[in-house]
């Protein structure tokens, strides 16, 4: 009796199938919990109304323009960042409830679990992005620069979301406790606010501005504004990330993936708790 190591292509195939099964699991959960789905979809729409009309009634867009046009790229970025929290809570819940142990005790592909979780998040991400776009169109937001830049913006949003969801997997695996994960959710809120999503960073104190400018949320917001042709392009002396927002988003995504994919896969595989 010898242990058979399946050939690499076979393993890859199963990793893919197992990953897809876990994405399908997310669909099954959504089907069973339509209330949760509706809440998840309504939330972005509420944000559009809240920020667009409540804050928008008092905020002047730098350089002029409609605040709701200025706001939408910021909201896209904010919802994108929420991927970290969503994935973290899901992974931590699986870990604390024993679902993760069942996965580990099964002959399934080892890296399928983190890949499946991030894939499932991409699915919900696309859904909420679609709702946001719908809500944005309703309140007067429009992409102005044509099909290709618009598609590029959505690609950047999707890419950064995917990369951020890997950070969520890692934090969830480390936390391993759904209650702690739930309590950590509000901590992420300041990260999204500490950016140019709702106000320009130019007026912030120096150290804060530095953080806000290097925040991936800011880069994604600036890149989207540019690609959608929305108002609010920062002017004056710019820090590097805001002068090259699309490149910054790509760098952030690459960095997040390079760090968190191996880290998450290794942490998931590690045994001996």
């Amino acid at each position, binding site marked *: *009796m010898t*242990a*058979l190591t399946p050939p690499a292509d076979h393993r890859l195939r*199963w990793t893919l*199938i*197992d990953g897809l*099964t*876990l994405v*399908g*699991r997310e669909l*099954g*959960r959504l089907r*069973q*919990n339509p209330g949760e789905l509706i809440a998840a979809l309504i939330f972005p729409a509420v944000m559009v109304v809240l920020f667009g009309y409540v804050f928008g009634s008092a905020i002047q867009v730098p350089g002029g323009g409609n605040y709701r046009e200025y706001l939408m790229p910021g909201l896209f970025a904010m919802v994108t960042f929420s991927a970290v929290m969503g994935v973290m809570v899901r992974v931590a819940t699986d870990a604390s*409830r*024993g*679902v993760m*142990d*069942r*996965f*580990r*005790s*099964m*002959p*399934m592909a080892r890296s*399928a679990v983190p890949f499946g979780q991030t894939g499932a998040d991409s699915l919900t991400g696309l859904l909420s992005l679609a709702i946001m776009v719908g809500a944005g169109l309703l309140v007067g937001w429009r992409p102005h620069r044509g099909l290709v830049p618009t598609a590029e913006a959505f690609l950047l949003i999707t890419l950064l979301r995917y990369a951020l969801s890997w950070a969520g997997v890692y934090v969830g695996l480390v936390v391993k406790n759904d209650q702690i994960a739930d309590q950590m959710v509000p901590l992420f809120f300041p990260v999204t606010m500490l950016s140019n999503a709702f106000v320009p960073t130019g007026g912030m104190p120096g150290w804060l501005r530095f953080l806000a400018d290097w925040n991936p949320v800011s880069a994604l917001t600036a890149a989207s504004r540019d690609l959608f042709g929305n108002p609010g392009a920062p002017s004056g002396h710019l820090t590097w990330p805001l002068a090259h927002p699309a490149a910054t988003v790509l760098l952030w995504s690459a960095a997040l993936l390079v760090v968190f994919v191996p880290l998450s896969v290794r942490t998931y595989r590690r*045994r*001996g*708790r």
Partner: protein
Amino acid sequence: MTDPIVFAEGLRKSFGDVQALRGLDLSIPRGRVCGVLGPNGAGKTTAVRILATLSDPDAGHARVAGYDVVRQAGEVRARIGLAGQHAAVDEKLTGRGNLRMFGRLSHLSRRAAHRRADELLERFGLTDAADRQVAGYSGGMRRRLDLITSLILRPEVLFLDEPTTGLDPRSRGEIWDSVRELVADGTTVLLTTQYLDEADRLADDIAVIDQGRVIATGTPDELKATIGDRLDVVVEDPAALRPAATVLTTLAGTAPATMDADRLSVVLPGGLRLADVVRELDRSGVAAADVRLRRPTLDEVFLRLTDRKEPVR
């Protein structure tokens, strides 16, 4: 003579300063139900986690279904099922949804996964609840689903880690019935439990674990025999208690273990017959209302074995 299907030798595992396992040996022949008993913190769960490939031992080795749990973990995983406090189901899916998902993750084809889900639901009486969300299941139903989820691949070895902890008596009975059915199919079961009656009813063999080591093994009857039968004597007149105690002390060679107002209980050494006891009591003029011989319960065995009179080394 076949090799044991679960075999562990010298397993050690520490968590920081705590030594959970200190050289655990275990051997389970194919097709048997082995009950692993031990007080909380004895190392039961750590042992199960190592055997189910969730955790690596610091030292020692173990084979399950012929494969090394560390070096051939994948082969082991294809042949085991795990249920109980450490494996769970997705509460947000339906029962059927869970079985289908775990079937797919066990690399069954879509059709086979669906068919297996239906079979298991039918066989273990969960068909009616199959399309309801697990979050709405009773504790007993959830455990049963958890149990059958671990049966998708018809495991050779099933690890049940405290499968009935916290369940009401009826649900426990249902889990027991399910386990008996599996055993009839030839599945080997390793069962950890805090309930001794559970081990007594289900287990062919018992391993008592304390402080990370196996301190006794045997069938329930063998273990009970190690502490001898108990003789209960009830006297008509409380004044007769003392003479009765004297008689019993002479016969048994030890003083009665317990003495109440009108009854006393003594551990009998082997070879002493009930008739001898009655005759001796008669001869001393003790009027006994009742003289009864009984086997010790597993609880008594357990308490005796795990009684920590010696200092922990």
